[in-house]
C-alpha cells in the first residue's frame, strides 16, 4: 500500500486509545500493527495450538459439540455445531463466521469466544463455519462457502434441533464482513430469512481510504497496511477498483434495504470505524433497523486482547439485551 496524493482529505491526529487498552497494547509488542503479505505465514503459525479444544467448547457440559463436513461449491466445508445440552425443543442459533483478515483464523479461534459466550448466555445453538482462506482461496470462495454453510444449516435446522425462523448470522472483523456479505447474498438470491445480523468490528470496505484508516496508520491492531494486505489477498488487483462485488465488500452495496435487524460495533481508534458507521447510516437511510456502538478509544479487537478492561466489559454488555429484544426471548 502507498499513501497517495488522492488521500487529500485532511485528517486529524489519531483519537487517543483508552488508557487501559493503551497499557495492554504496550505489553503486546509481538503483535505488529502493519501486517504485510510475507507475515501471513508467521501470523498463521502463531495461532497454531490456540484454538479452543472440544472440552473447552463444551463449557462444563453446557454445550454438546459436534463437527460435520457439509458439501459446498469448492469441496466440503467443516461446520462446528454447539447445541445447548439437555434441551429437547428447537432452539435459536447463531451462524458464526470467524475473523482473521480473510487470511487466517479458524472456526474454533479465540475471536469466536464472545459469540459462544452470547449463545451460552441466551441458550442458543452455534454453527461456526470454517471457510477456506485467501490468498490461496480468493473471492468468491470464502463468501460462497459461508453462504453454502448457511443454506445447509437452514435446510437441516430440525435435524440440528434448531428453529429455522430464529437463525442469527454473525461475525467479527473479516467474519463480520463475510456475515454482512452472506446476508446480502441471502436477500438477493431468495435464500434463508435471517432473524438478525451481528457485525462485530466488521471489515466491509476494500477501498481502504477512510479517514479512520488514514489516522491509524502504523497504530493499534490491523492498520491500513494490514487492511490492504487482507483485501489484496481476497481480491488481488481488483482491490479498490470499480468492479468489486458487494458480496466481497459489503460497503460497495448501493441497496441496503430489506436486511434483518443489525447490531454493529467498532472502536473509535481503529481502521474500520468510518466504514462501520457508514454501513449503519446506510441501513437507516434505507429504512432499516440497526443498533450501532462506537467504543471510544478502542483499537481493533480490543475485547479479544484486553478482555478484562472496562471498555471490553462495556462493549460486551448491550449485545445480549439487543438479541433478546430482536428474538423476543
Amino acid at each position, binding site marked *: 500500500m502507498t499513501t497517495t496524493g488522492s488521500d487529500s482529505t485532511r485528517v486529524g491526529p489519531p483519537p487517543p486509545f483508552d488508557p*487501559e487498552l*493503551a497499557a495492554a497494547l*504496550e505489553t503486546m509488542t509481538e503483535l505488529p500493527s502493519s501486517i504485510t503479505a510475507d507475515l501471513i505465514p508467521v501470523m498463521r503459525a502463531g495461532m497454531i495450538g490456540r484454538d479452543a479444544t472440544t472440552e473447552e467448547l463444551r463449557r462444563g457440559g453446557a454445550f454438546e459439540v459436534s463437527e460435520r463436513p457439509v458439501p459446498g461449491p469448492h469441496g466440503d466445508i467443516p461446520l462446528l455445531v454447539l447445541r445447548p445440552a439437555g434441551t429437547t425443543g428447537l432452539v435459536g442459533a447463531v451462524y458464526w463466521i470467524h475473523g482473521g483478515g480473510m487470511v487466517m483464523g479458524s472456526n474454533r479461534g479465540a475471536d469466536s469466544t464472545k459469540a459462544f459466550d452470547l449463545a451460552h448466555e441466551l441458550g442458543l445453538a452455534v454453527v461456526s463455519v470454517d471457510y477456506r482462506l485467501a490468498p490461496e482461496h480468493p473471492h468468491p470462495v470464502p463468501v460462497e462457502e459461508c453462504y453454502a454453510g448457511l443454506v445447509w444449516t437452514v435446510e437441516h435446522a430440525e435435524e440440528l434441533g434448531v428453529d429455522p425462523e430464529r437463525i442469527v448470522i454473525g461475525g467479527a472483523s473479516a467474519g463480520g464482513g463475510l456475515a454482512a456479505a452472506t446476508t446480502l447474498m441471502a436477500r438477493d438470491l431468495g435464500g434463508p430469512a435471517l432473524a438478525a445480523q451481528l457485525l462485530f468490528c466488521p471489515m466491509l470496505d476494500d477501498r481502504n481510504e477512510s479517514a479512520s484508516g488514514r489516522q491509524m496508520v502504523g497504530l493499534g491492531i490491523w492498520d491500513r497496511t494490514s487492511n490492504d494486505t487482507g483485501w489484496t489477498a481476497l481480491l488481488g488487483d481488483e482491490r479498490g477498483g470499480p468492479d468489486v462485488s458487494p458480496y466481497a465488500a459489503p460497503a460497495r452495496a448501493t441497496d441496503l434495504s430489506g436486511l434483518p435487524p443489525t447490531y454493529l460495533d467498532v472502536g473509535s481508534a481503529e481502521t474500520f470505524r468510518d466504514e462501520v458507521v457508514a454501513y449503519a447510516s446506510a441501513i437507516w437511510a434505507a429504512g432499516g433497523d440497526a443498533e450501532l456502538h462506537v467504543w471510544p478509544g478502542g483499537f481493533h479487537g480490543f475485547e479479544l486482547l484486553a478482555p478484562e478492561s*472496562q471498555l471490553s466489559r462495556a462493549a460486551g454488555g448491550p449485545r445480549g439485551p439487543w438479541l433478546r429484544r430482536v428474538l423476543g426471548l
Partner: protein
Amino acid sequence: MEDLVGRLSALDPDAGAAVKVIAYFDRLVEGRAGLEPVVRGAAVLTGCAARLVDSDRGVDLRVDGTGAVRPSDGPPDPSWLNAPLHPGGPPALWLERAGPAGPVEAMVLERALSAARGALSRTRGPAPADDVAAVLDAAVAEPARRRAARRLGLGPAARAVALDGGRAGVLAADQTVAATRAGVGPLVPVEDLPSSWAAARTALRFAAAGTEQDPGPGVVHADQLGGLAVLAAAVGPGAEPVPDVRDLERARSTAPWALATLVAVATSSSLRTAAATLVVHHSTLQDRLTHVEELLGWSVRDPAGRLRLQLAIALRRLHNHH
C-alpha cells in the same frame, strides 16, 4: 489480558516482565487512567485479586484476578502482600497472596501505587497527608495553604507537630498531641504554620524517647523551651560533645540507673518528688546521687550544678536527635 499473565510469567521475571509492568503502568498514567484500571492492572498482571484501601478518602476498591470489580468480603489478611501509599502510612494496596513478593509482584506494587497516588489526588483530592505537607511548606502559595488548612478542619490558628521518622502533623487550637514522642510548635495563624513547623522540629530534638538510654518527657512544646532553643542551632551533626555530655554517657554505662536518676532530679521540684517518680526510697536516692556525683565530678544538688546537669541532659538529646 488473560494471555498477558501467561506471557508475563513466561518471561524472565527479572528482565522482560519488569519492563512490561513498567510500560503498562506508565501508559495508564500517561492516559490519566482512573483508580479502577490501576487496581485492575495490579490484579491481572499478578493473576490475583488486588484491593486499594484509603480510609482517609473513603476508597475501598477490589478487583479479582479476572479483572472484575468484586466488593471485599472481609478485611485484608495481614499476611498478604501490601504496600502503603506514603512511607510510614498504613497498607493501601493489597495483593491477595501471601509473601514474600517475587520480582514481578514487587514491581507491580510499586508502579501501581505510584499510579494510584496520581489517580487518587486527581479524583478524590489531595490526601490529608498531602494537605498537612502543604500547610507546613512555605514554598506553597499562601492561598493553597489556606485551602489545605480548611480541608483539614483547622480554625484560624493551629500548631505544627513534628513526629518521629520525619512525619508531620497539625493540631487545631483545641487539640492535644497523642504521640509518645513529639515536638509541638507554637499556636500561630494558619498562614504561619511553616514557622510553627520549624519550631516543632527543634522541640522534637529535645524530646526523649522514653527508653532506658533516653529517659525523660517525650512531648516537648517549643514555646516552653525558652533560651534552650538557641542551643539547638549550636549542636549540628558531627558537633563535638562537651565534656559534661561525655561524663553523662560514662555515668550511664557504669550504672544503668544513673541517667534515669539524673533526669528525674533535673526535672523534679525536690529530691523527694524525684524519689517518688523513680519509686525508690529517699535515702536510696541520696546514696545514688553521691555515687553519681563522684562519676560526674560535680554536685547536682546545688543550683549551679542543677543548671549544669540540665544543660548536659539537653545537649545529650540534641546530639542524639538531629
